[in-house]
């Protein structure tokens, strides 16, 4: 995706004007909903129901943000989204760490210690990323119940690790496939063992793919709704589920400005990651679909 490559298509002046116009309009289309959310999250409610959604706030207020964070009614409790934000953090960090480490080791084994039928095993792991998760909801609910993990963050960690391994293995496998096998052979002759080769030779070169994998897993797990709603709907719910409760279940006056502030709060972590490390985010998207 380098922009240095010279492209030799020539376009006329009118065509170019049209192209720029189209590209700008589309940019507007993508920006508008989020822009409106931000603008209206700092307006008092009266300005939203009575006024124009495009207008900048006449009275600037951060009340809705404070309400969304700590006092808004989520479900039955007026706790705000704060406890659920921490639920998500407590779920995401271990789940991302574990699935990434497992993915790295799996990728290492599947490329540098190949054995019979390893491609089939990898295929089985890979397919598990794409299944409709509805197919595992019922037995998973049962197992979590049996293990005493229903409604808990630990249960969600387990679920996300299990269904995240496929992708993290895919990333590291494709990355390590391009890592020269001669280095591994040289290390073997030098006397390094299975784990030493991994720590000393492959790991130091795995920075970029680790970033890609962590970002992908983080985004996916943070944004998950189905598992959260199915296995942790109460006080252990993650951010997405709580946001949905906030938006859907408010009885009485709908506090749109609070909903917007809440939605932005829910989007903020992944959005920040995207802004800081967008390049890796795109690489992850690509590697997740177009292999090789």
């Amino acid at each position: 995706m380098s922009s240095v490559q010279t492209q030799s298509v020539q376009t006329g002046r009118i065509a170019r004007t049209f192209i720029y116009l189209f590209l700008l309009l589309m940019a507007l289309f993508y920006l508008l909903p989020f822009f409106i959310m931000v603008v209206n999250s700092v307006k008092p409610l009266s300005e939203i129901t009575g006024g124009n959604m495009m207008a900048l706030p006449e009275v600037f207020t951060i009340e809705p943000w404070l309400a969304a964070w700590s006092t808004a009614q989520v479900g039955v409790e007026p706790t705000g989204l704060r406890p659920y934000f921490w639920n998500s953090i407590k779920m995401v960090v271990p789940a991302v760490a574990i699935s990434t480490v497992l993915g790295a080791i799996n990728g290492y084994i599947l490329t540098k210690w190949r054995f019979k039928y390893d491609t089939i095993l990898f295929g089985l792991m890979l397919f598990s990323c794409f299944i409709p998760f509805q197919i595992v909801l019922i037995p998973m609910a049962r197992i979590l119940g049996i293990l005493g993990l229903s409604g808990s963050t630990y249960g969600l960690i387990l679920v996300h690790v299990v269904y995240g391994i496929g992708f993290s293995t895919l990333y590291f496998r494709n990355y390590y496939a391009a890592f020269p096998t001669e280095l591994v052979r040289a290390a073997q002759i030098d006397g390094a063992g299975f784990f030493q080769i991994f720590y000393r030779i492959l790991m130091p070169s795995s920075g970029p793919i680790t970033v890609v994998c962590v970002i992908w897993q983080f985004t996916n797990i943070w944004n998950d709704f189905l598992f959260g709603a199915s296995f942790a709907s109460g006080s252990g719910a993650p951010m997405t589920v709580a946001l949905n409760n906030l938006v859907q279940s408010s009885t009485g006056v709908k506090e749109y400005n609070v909903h917007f502030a809440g939605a932005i709060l829910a989007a903020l972590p992944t959005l920040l990651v995207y802004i800081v490390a967008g390049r890796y985010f795109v690489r992850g998207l690509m590697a997740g679909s177009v292999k090789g």
Partner: protein
Amino acid sequence: MGFLDIKNATKSYGNVEVLHNVDIAVDEGEFLVLVGPSGCGKSTLLNMIAGLEDITSGEIAINDRVMNGVHPSNRNIAMVFQSYALYPNMTVAKNITFGLEMHKVPKPERDEALQSVSKLLQIEQLLDRKPGQLSGGQRQRVAMGRALVRNPDVFLFDEPLSNLDAKLRVDMRTEIKKLHEKLKTTIVYVTHDQIEAMTLSTRIAVMYNGYVQQLGTPKEIYDTPENLFVATFMGSPAMNILPASVVMKDGVPHAEITTSEGQNALLPFNQENMSDWAGKDILLGIRPEAITDPDGVDRKSKTVVPISNRVGVTEPAGADTFVTMELAGKDCISRMRADADVTTGEIFDFVINMDKAVAFDPQSEMRIK
């Protein structure tokens, strides 16, 4: 029994046998080159010596110790790879001493070994750099340093020069040869480049299709190739292979070939046993440098025969001039002195040095002895 003993070694992947009953005994201090086209099994054999691939059947022993099933690091071997395989995240010094560290050699000894090796290879000023900051030639030296520091029984080289540009390749070739003469180590060296094989080795194993076609000194391989494959693979331009029939004249066996002008030329053999082939067809092998102008002929040769033939294309190449022509119905190349006076299209009086000619059985493609 040699220092490195390969006995009846075979390699199969599933049902496919890729290496068939290889027998090679290498003496201590020898420089053995495995040469052949890609896919001939030479790298597989090297990897089997290294322990990177297991041995399906047969035996490989180093210094009287059978190595089947022994881990690469326990074989006391070192290897220089085609890509050099330098660890990209480690400095040159770390790269060189990593193997010692893995073998739990104490730090002072490691440093000492590093000093002497880097001095030998003149890479002292590079020790703190990362491989990415080195030129191709420098990487090559570091890779050799990593191998040397272990002080192994056998050095294995896997096409170590193929990533270098032409000039550097020649320099490094000389350097490897110097190093071998100085250290007197045992080396097994894989290449597909027959010039490397000729210049470096004390002995060559020419491989093709998973078989060792011929094992011998460079001179034996060049002058008396065992079969047609070895004859045409070794030497550049390749040996001319001309269909001929054997006729007896004055009690001496001659090879009869047709010139470009449709005349028959008789080339006397100086091998008595060719009489057995009288009346039969053979393939006559003549190296390009054995077809010259009369002034360019080797003075020690006894059997030099003139032959008139039309010149095809002349290709001056600086040191030599190559002349192509049609002989015995085949394209044939002759290598002449640079200032030989030949013109395209003329009839020219060549001489053929029959001392250097070999004959092959057209059926078995083996050399007639």
